[in-house]
């Protein structure tokens, strides 16, 4: 099975708009899913500057899916969905 890939954007905009609170995912995800999911902080994914979409930050990518206004809960739900797919 292919690994699920999670990228938490730690660019400045995402960080200020809330991804500082998503850093717990970096500890939480490996504990919860082990080898099946790969999670890492990422430099700016460039999503905030498309049409100045900073108000939808923080962004997280779970495989190809972009999660806007990401929260820990939203990201975990998206991972579960990918694992089932």
């Amino acid at each position, binding site marked *: 099975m292919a690994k699920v890939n999670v990228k938490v954007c*730690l*660019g*400045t*905009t995402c*960080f*200020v*708009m*809330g991804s*500082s*609170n998503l*850093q*717990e995912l970096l500890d939480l995800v490996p504990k919860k899913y082990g080898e099946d999911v790969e999670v890492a*902080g990422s*430099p*700016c994914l460039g999503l*905030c*500057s498309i049409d100045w979409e*900073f*108000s939808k930050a923080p962004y997280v990518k779970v495989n190809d899916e972009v999660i806007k*206004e990401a*929260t820990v809960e939203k990201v975990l739900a998206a991972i579960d969905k990918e694992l089932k797919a």
Partner: protein
Amino acid sequence: MAINTPNKQTSHIKREILARIIRAYLGDNFEEEVRMIPFEMRPKGSEVPYRCCIHKERAILRDRVIAGLGFDIEEVPDYEDLSSTAKKSTKREKPEEHPLTLLQTACNECVPARIHVTDLCQGCVARPCESACKFGAIKVENGKSRIDQTKCKSCGLCAQVCPFQAITKIIVPCENACPVGAIAKDEDGLTKIDHEKCISCGKCVSACPFGAVHKKSQIIDIIKNIKNGKKVIAMLAPAIMGQLPCTPAQLKQAILDIGFCDVVEVALGADITTKNEAAEFEERMEKGEEFMTTSCCAAYNELVEKHIPEIKPFRSDTKTPAYYTAELVKKEQPDALTVFFSPCVAKRREAMQNPNIDFVLSFEELGAWFVARNIQVANCEKSEFKKESSAQARNFAVTGGVADAVNSLLDENKKAKAHVINGLDKQAIRDLKKFAKNGKCELGNLIEVMACPGGCLGGSNTINSYRQALKQLSGYVENSPEIKEIIQ
């Protein structure tokens, strides 16, 4: 007490508004763009995530913009167009005195605080609530306990003894968080801040789940001076080194990039504070004094002035790191303006009373500024600080850090026994009053007071979560020189 768990949604809204105001001010059409902020954030047909209708959402956003522009929300007439308010903000000579303002339209009119018997009450035979109540305020009627609110003193004993946990205390979050009773609902149900009592600790800002307590921003005043070509110098409180995803040298460059002409660490002043405070402690102990308290937390200093004047003789006369830093900067560059970068609201009051500190910018506001300018701090070049500060000074932001710094300069046989007050709450204030009254403290002879749990890293205007911020700051501290190498 929870450390620095910012309400994510309210912080998000406040920061978005700040970023929009800053971007508007840096553009060519400030007044009109400000007027449009509520409409851009809630355009026609958009979702109504929090309130009854889109009009109330916009009305609340409008009020938040007023605070972002630096005004008291209550004092701006409700018929005033935001573009006029924006214009006024650029004409203002001085920022407003009191840092906090209340947003009545966002205030939820929480139920007044009281003890409440829930449906879980079984009307039991033992009735411990009746016997526990010293005021005869609770009686079982028709198989259920009832509280006579005219007699109830809200002591909560009945709730403690109920075997079903059926009695609960309804709290108003801001009132409950305020350690000095400065915020309360009046007879008309309107929340008011009593500025005579308020110590600007910012606990109400963090506590309100509706984000109804705002700080009045000085961001327009600061950017205006930069735009006008003034020399503006940034003074960074030590807690900032844990706030953004970059190194201290990159952060310095990022701050130069947004228009500041120089950037200094307030840790410079913290080294002077440590030296003076250690000498003062030694002298006081030699004179036979029982204890001394620190004096670097602005909310604690305001608490002493307004509520515990009797502890003044025990408080160190040493000035704050911000004081010494600003003095150094103004001595070297008297024509420059100084901006203190702050993790909390309380420093606003300190700055107001110090002619060497012209403005205060919160970490949140700095973050919003970077967002508005689309600056990636992690991509910035490195710009090293001209003067080195010690590990101890850079660790002032962490609870226990000030006492540790003082101890690092004291001889082995003269070390202080530190008692750390990690967060000012009602109990801590009672303790401090007791120490002052008795003239001694059994728990130690150096009392470090930090209004925020965790120290400045737990301040109400911080960006990063406490644990991550601590990790980042500790990395910086570990690579800094010992204090004895810095001061002579």
